[in-house]
């Protein structure tokens, strides 16, 4: 019997537990290190990185919604070279798995970033083809099987690192997109990115977000995310990293039963920055009570 009942192997990489702060909600980890050691986390999915520095969208970039929030950050980031030079060396000292989340507006931008990361010591790539906040890119690829397949193929060729494709929920059939990624050599898929939404300030009759629309996340999207994880896990033979509204250890267990081997936590950090460590504690208790290794529950929901 393994004494660490939360340990899991995903794409050949050992995670001490399956809990990972979601891309874009945790920066490069520095800020949260003031709350708890980053080594307590299974891994970190860093802020989405593009080929060049991006300023992002004009504010306001956030709006609260019932049990959730919209964001329209627009991939503000310092660019891939700065990430590799200034952030990665620091992250690599933290004794946790580092997942580089990347995004591009063209096929060649994805290729270039993936190529640059291949010679670094990031542990794996998460390829965002689903950012709803950037006009010229990302999501345009994620909404069709051809687009998703094309990006997967290009990134696959550019790197030997494990490649995880991050899927958009703003599609008719997410399972078919996951299958297209698998067919082109993806090692894993992660889902869901945010759902496109909108809020309007009724007093000034203008959208709250300067970008007019933004991505919905938080507890409001949880049932949608569980359903999509379940559909995708049943459709592909590669592992699934689940996210979308997870805010407690019970949510994490539910999403794992639906088929997720790893869990990312985003918006819940804003409500409570301690969420990841609380989830990890809760999962340990759960495994003790159920006398099980956590990885053994993945995908074990028995549908009616």
């Amino acid at each position: 019997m393994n004494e660490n009942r939360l340990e899991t192997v995903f794409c050949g990489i050992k995670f001490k537990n399956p809990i990972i702060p979601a891309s874009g909600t945790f920066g490069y980890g520095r800020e949260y290190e003031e709350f708890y050691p980053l080594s307590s986390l299974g891994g970190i999915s860093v802020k989405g990185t593009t080929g060049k520095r991006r300023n992002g969208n004009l504010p306001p970039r956030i709006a609260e919604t019932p049990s959730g929030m919209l964001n329209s950050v627009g991939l503000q980031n310092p660019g891939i070279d700065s990430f590799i030079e200034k952030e990665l060396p620091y992250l690599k000292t933290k004794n946790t798995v580092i997942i580089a989340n990347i995004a591009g507006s063209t096929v060649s931008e994805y290729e270039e970033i993936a190529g640059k990361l291949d010679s670094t010591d990031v542990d794996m790539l998460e390829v965002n083809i689903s950012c709803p906040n950037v006009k010229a890119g990302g999501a345009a690829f994620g909404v069709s099987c051809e687009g998703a397949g094309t990006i997967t193929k290009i990134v696959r060729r550019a790197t030997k690192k494990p490649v995880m494709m991050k899927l958009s929920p703003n599609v008719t059939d997410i399972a078919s997109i996951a299958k297209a990624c698998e067919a082109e050599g993806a090692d894993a898929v992660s889902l869901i990115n945010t759902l496109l939404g909108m809020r309007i300030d009724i007093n000034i009759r203008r959208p709250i977000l300067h970008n007019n629309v933004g991505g919905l996340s938080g507890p409001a999207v949880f049932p949608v995310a569980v359903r999509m994880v379940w559909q995708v896990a049943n459709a592909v033979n590669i592992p699934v990293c689940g996210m979308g509204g997870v805010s407690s250890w019970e949510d994490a267990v539910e999403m794992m039963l639906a088929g997720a081997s790893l869990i990312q936590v985003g918006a819940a950090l804003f409500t409570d920055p301690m969420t990841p460590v609380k989830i990890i504690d809760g999962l340990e208790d759960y495994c003790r009570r159920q006398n099980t290794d956590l990885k053994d529950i993945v995908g074990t929901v028995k549908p009616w």
Partner: protein
Amino acid sequence: MKYCQGLYPIIRKENPAAEVYGLVILCPEIAAIAKCGQFVNIRIDGFTLRRPVSICEIDRQKGTLRIVFQIRGKGTDAMSLLNPGDLIDMVAPLGGRGFTLQEGANAIIIGGGIGNPPMLELAKFYGGNATVISGFRNAAAVILQEDFKSTGAKTFLCTNDGTAGEKGFVTDILGRELQTHTPDIICACGPMPMLKGVAAIAKEKGIRSEVSLEERMGCGVGGCLVCACRTVKDGEEIFAHVCKDGPVFDSKEVFPNE
């Protein structure tokens, strides 16, 4: 920088004006490290996002913080129902940059409306070397005047409609004061048009000035990048983040064209 998160007891509540509430919170671990100009981020049951509120006063001896806020929506409305004895969930102290505290310097401190609370701790620091200018909509909205007086600062009060203090704007009084003396620094918090006006005057007179900004927030610590504010530093456009790079900024960076 160190952040604390926890449940802290409320020990005092005040209601200094209609729809304005103050809370004194016992949180020695936060009070020990909090700095002038920083803020706390408050969780309210039933809301996904925390509500940022400036620190109005820090009492290190008693281990308390005082915050003063106005009801602006559902979240602050729920906060106004908290009472002494209740616990409040805070992440604090937040803000990578507070007001510059320059020993022995002369300061003009300006607060507009609900921008007044964060200026009290600053007025306490400068004491007799400070001139405080407070502006409000009308007499009913006036808060903190006794507190400002007890710091030893020279104080001025104005309202838009003249129902309390002088009739007019804080920038009118600032302009007048600058004819008789030149401070080392001007610090301000309030609505954007007011801050813009203050920045323009400070620039014209060549006086250093700092402004405290508000922006909608997610994490409050610098991890999510939603609280962006366009700044210009050394000619370069930078989307800074109010929670981590501020909330206090050099006014020249925020209003480069004034």
